[in-house]
């Protein structure tokens, strides 16, 4: 019964939540446009700080996970390809899998866990402490002051993290293949020949878009924090879950578009 009640409650609340998020995204876009015409109103220092936290401090974990992903993929594929004596093609597969799909997606999930939740907790705590009200009564728009610098920072940080994660993945794969007696020169030769500029650029553009989604959802969850004991915790959780769902959806749409365009 409670499951049915919960579904009913969620269905009843959905239009309001959808309207709220649509208004938030619209307002953010409007503020971003206005700041684009008056760039001196952009909070560069806040954006630089958020970039440092997302990119510099997240580099080790993103690269580490990319490396392990490369190792695991190489092991799994090499086991199958070895039966046909073509394990050298593992590097081709790694390049396509990492640069096109897994690199951007896995890095975005890491970013959602680190930065998305951090944004939600920071802004949520500010809301509980009346700091957002203080901004409004000073005539300052919280979207320009808090959201825009963070979203810009993670949008810029994601391609940087993704490149490092992908290169670390290739390195992981190369170590595995070297252990299987595939010379590293052959590995890198195959890797370079199987990658295309379009594939790399498409992956990076996609990763920047994922970064923007993570930033928007993290900050939006923070702005919607309720002043209850578990309000900030709930916001952080919804930022991570919402971020991951949005990344999966966006990646699915990107894959469908690529399929339709034949690229």
């Amino acid at each position, binding site marked *: 019964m409670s499951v049915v009640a919960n579904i009913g409650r969620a269905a009843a609340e959905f239009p309001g939540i959808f309207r709220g998020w649509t208004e938030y995204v619209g307002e953010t876009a409007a503020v971003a446009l206005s700041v684009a015409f008056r760039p001196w109103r952009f909070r560069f220092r806040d954006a630089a700080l958020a970039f440092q936290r997302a990119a510099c401090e997240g580099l080790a974990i993103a690269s580490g996970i990319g490396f392990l992903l490369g190792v695991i993929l190489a092991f799994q594929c090499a086991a199958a390809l070895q039966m046909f004596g073509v394990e050298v093609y593992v590097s081709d597969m790694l390049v396509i899998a990492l640069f096109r799909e897994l690199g951007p997606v896995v890095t975005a999930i890491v970013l959602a866990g680190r930065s998305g939740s951090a944004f939600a907790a920071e802004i949520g705590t500010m809301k509980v*402490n009346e700091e957002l009200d203080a901004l409004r009564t000073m*005539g300052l728009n919280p979207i320009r002051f808090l959201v825009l610098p963070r979203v810009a920072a993670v949008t810029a940080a994601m391609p940087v993290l993704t490149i490092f994660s992908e290169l670390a993945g290739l390195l992981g794969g190369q170590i595995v293949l070297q252990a299987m007696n595939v010379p590293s020169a052959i590995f890198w030769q195959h890797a370079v020949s199987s990658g295309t500029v379009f594939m790399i650029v498409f992956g990076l553009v996609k990763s920047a878009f994922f970064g923007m989604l993570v930033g928007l959802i993290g900050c939006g969850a923070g702005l919607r924090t309720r002043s209850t004991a578990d309000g900030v915790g709930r916001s952080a959780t919804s930022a991570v879950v919402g971020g991951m769902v949005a990344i999966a959806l966006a990646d699915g749409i990107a894959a469908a578009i690529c399929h339709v365009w034949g690229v």
Partner: protein
Amino acid sequence: MEKDAVVELERVDAGYPGSLVLSDISFSVAGGEIFVLLGTSGCGKSTVMKHMIGLNPVLRGTLRVAGLEWSAATRAELCRKIGVMYQSGALFGSMTCLENILLPLEEFSPLKKKERTERAMELLRDVELAEAADRMPGEISGGMRKRVAIARAMALDPEVVFLDEPSAGLDPITSSALDDLILSLRESKRMTFVVVTHELASIFKIADRCAMFDKARRTMIAIGEPERLRDGSNDDFVRKFFNRG
């Protein structure tokens, strides 16, 4: 309405859409006055203040601050005519005390960088906290945070400063010192203060006039000088409040 009124409420219904908290409230606050909103916890005094500082629109009636009604068109102008100190201080935790005061100056003041810093330091000296300029809000006491918040509220020389529960969470000595600060700022800057509190000691020390709200009757039940309300009111609730039951 009074000619020199800085804040005017005319038949205002206070609350949130679908939830009326107080109805039919009318009063005005004159320039240079310290006006206190008082009542028991949950009676709606902070709700009335949220209307006055433009966070929530009034449900009905007219509310003017510095001669202008709150609306989307007047919001930016009105925000520069008011200063607000929140109950928690609401200082930005990632900025030093000096940076907190500099923020409204950087955004709205025509002053140059050096002049802005001098102005912010002057405000910190006014609240006797010049030594805390480079400290973070998390490193100073609750009373000091409230003083910095008052300095920030006064940064743009507002016509009226709103203080939400300035004594809340403070010991009697710190609370009394904060009352002295409010009185001295009123004298030196000729500023108008609207204060939300239910601390009787503060009310008798700083208030020129006060308005009392009652949760049960959902309206304003008394207005006037605190001593006159205490000694001359015919209302049982008002007498009970001032004589602590």
